[in-house]
């Protein structure tokens, strides 16, 4: 296992990765409450970005509607918890199953009927928007007035019911992010990973070599959907409230994919770097504006937009490939 994970990696990159992990594990002792919540947000986006990257970065299928998997995961686990008292760890497999089923339906319809490229991207938006409006009218989970979980008692941590303080959620998210990283590494180096790569680069060629492209594209969608649903469960129990207008909104889907695109599509570190850059930048801007007393709504997002523009203009492959060259760890971390 360790052999598989470290195979082909440079000692320098392993040392850097170890350092990063040590800093992240130690963070709750070093950071204050505010910084901790920022770190949770960063890890959340790193994780969801990693999940999205399986579909887009590995298999080349552009999904612009990943909010649907977050939302289905969040609503499934939350509804089971509130209505039937089912603990989130039991609700988790159900949440994953629902999201995977949804991913399978979208994937099946799209790939069977030959919906590809821009059309596929817009189909994913359509499903997410359909779900958003559907949940707005879904009275079992309170429709558009929002679905609330009983607020956590912060005096002690209840890991089984996911009620507790931010430190618990932080470590939970850190474990998830690390697990997703390892899973993606394994997937990338697996036979399926190479099939995905072939499909991404040239689908017709991949098919002519005998790869069952339909099946492997389906695997990519279903795995990505299931991984994203886990983030949804976390989202529900961390924020304790769910509104269809927020959870399923297209801006959630876009938010989720900016990280990996900025960081570098198809790379393992891209989603992590992207999440750090974007969330960090956004929080930094907010603090700067508070400090100088210039708090106009929208100003932060204008700056955000300009930064996105600059990155996509100047670093077409994303930040990570460039950064990797800079710190000399290009070999083995494609």
């Amino acid at each position, binding site marked *: 296992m360790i052999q598989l994970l470290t195979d082909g990696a440079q000692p320098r990159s392993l040392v850097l990765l170890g350092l990063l992990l040590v800093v992240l594990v130690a963070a709750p002792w070093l950071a204050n409450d505010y910084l901790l919540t920022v770190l949770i947000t960063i890890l959340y986006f790193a994780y969801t970005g990693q999940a999205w990257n399986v579909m*887009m970065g590995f298999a080349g299928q*552009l999904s*612009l509607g990943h909010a649907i998997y977050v939302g289905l995961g969040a609503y499934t686990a939350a509804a089971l918890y509130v209505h039937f008292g089912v603990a989130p760890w039991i609700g988790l497999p159900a949440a994953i199953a629902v999201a995977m089923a949804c991913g399978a339906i979208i994937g099946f*319809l*799209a790939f069977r*009927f*030959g*919906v590809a*490229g*821009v*059309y596929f*991207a*817009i*189909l994913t*938006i*359509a*499903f997410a*928007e*359909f779900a958003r*409006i*559907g949940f*707005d*009218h879904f009275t079992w989970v309170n429709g*558009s007035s929002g679905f609330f979980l009983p607020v956590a008692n912060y005096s002690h941590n209840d890991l089984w019911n996911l009620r507790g303080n931010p430190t618990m959620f932080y470590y939970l998210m850190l474990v998830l992010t690390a697990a997703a990283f390892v899973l993606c590494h394994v997937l990338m180096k697996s036979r399926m990973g190479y099939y995905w790569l072939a499909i991404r680069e040239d689908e017709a060629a991949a098919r002519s070599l005998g790869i069952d492209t339909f099946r492997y594209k389906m695997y990519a969608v279903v795995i990505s959907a299931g991984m994203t649903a886990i983030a949804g469960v976390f989202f529900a129990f961390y924020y304790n409230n769910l509104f269809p207008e927020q959870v399923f909104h*297209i*801006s959630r889907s*876009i938010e989720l994919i*900016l990280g990996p*695109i*900025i960081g570098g*599509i198809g790379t393992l570190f891209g989603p992590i770097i992207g999440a750090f850059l974007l969330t960090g930048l956004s929080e930094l801007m907010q603090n700067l504006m508070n400090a100088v007393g210039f708090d*106009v*709504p*929208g*100003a*932060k*997002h*204008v700056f*955000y*937009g*300009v930064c*996105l*523009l600059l990155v*996509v*203009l100047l670093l*077409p492959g994303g930040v990570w490939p460039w950064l990797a060259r800079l710190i000399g760890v290009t070999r083995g971390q494609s």
Partner: protein
Amino acid sequence: MAAQIYLNVAVSGLLTGLVYGLMALGLSVIFGVVRVVNFAHGEMMTIAMYLAIVCFTALKLDPLLMVIPIAAVLFAFGYALQAGLINPFINRPEHSQFILLVAIGMIIVNLLLIIFGPDARNVQTSYAFDSFEIGTVIVDATKVYAGIATLVVAAALFVFFRFTAVGKAIRACADNYTGALVVGLDVKRLYALTFGIGAACVGAAGVMLVLLVDVTPALGPTLTLLAFIIVITGGLGSMPGALIGGVLIGLTEAMAGLLFTPSAKSMFSFGLLVLVLLFRPQGILGKRAA
């Protein structure tokens, strides 16, 4: 009585649908030629809507008079955008173009938010409550004017693309990029021109839409999505398809709003979109891509 209500709602939906169609026409023209999906389309439309509101409140200029000037402003905006930012992205992968346009859209939405604030705005024309009565059907005058103006603009575009040399050159770029380069067409300039024309369409549509709905900065992304639905339903790259798609979506939304709850009306549009994508991905009038 009941039949009369349905007829009224249908006519109203049809006329609103024409304005939607003009908006989608802009998107369709841009995609059909430049092969870039304009994710900032609705945001550009809100620019036109706010321009119309400023002209109306500050200068007392009627929005219908401002259709052409504002379309011209949007043309310049679109031309500059394509020439300056989008042309270098033509051969980049889709997600790269997507980020570029999402970033542009984000900047537009939030600049408008800074300038105009989050409140809904509209124009109060003297003819806002006028209506025409044709038999038993009562139609809002503004919708009739907007519908007629849409048809005029669309007709002008058809003439431009079919009969002028520049229009033919643009269609040549759309049909065969390499071939257009080989025969010496300045493809980048034609692309900029096309994006400008698309922007002018959405500008004209925006000015007319301001007569029908209130505008907030957050309306932009909603309109972008609406334009996608229409264009794909009608057929990406097909000009009559965009108009027909617009009318179809306008009708669907109006009817769904009447028969179910108004808040669920766009669910039916998305449902329609999914059906079209699955059973006729090229759209109602679109040609099957090679």
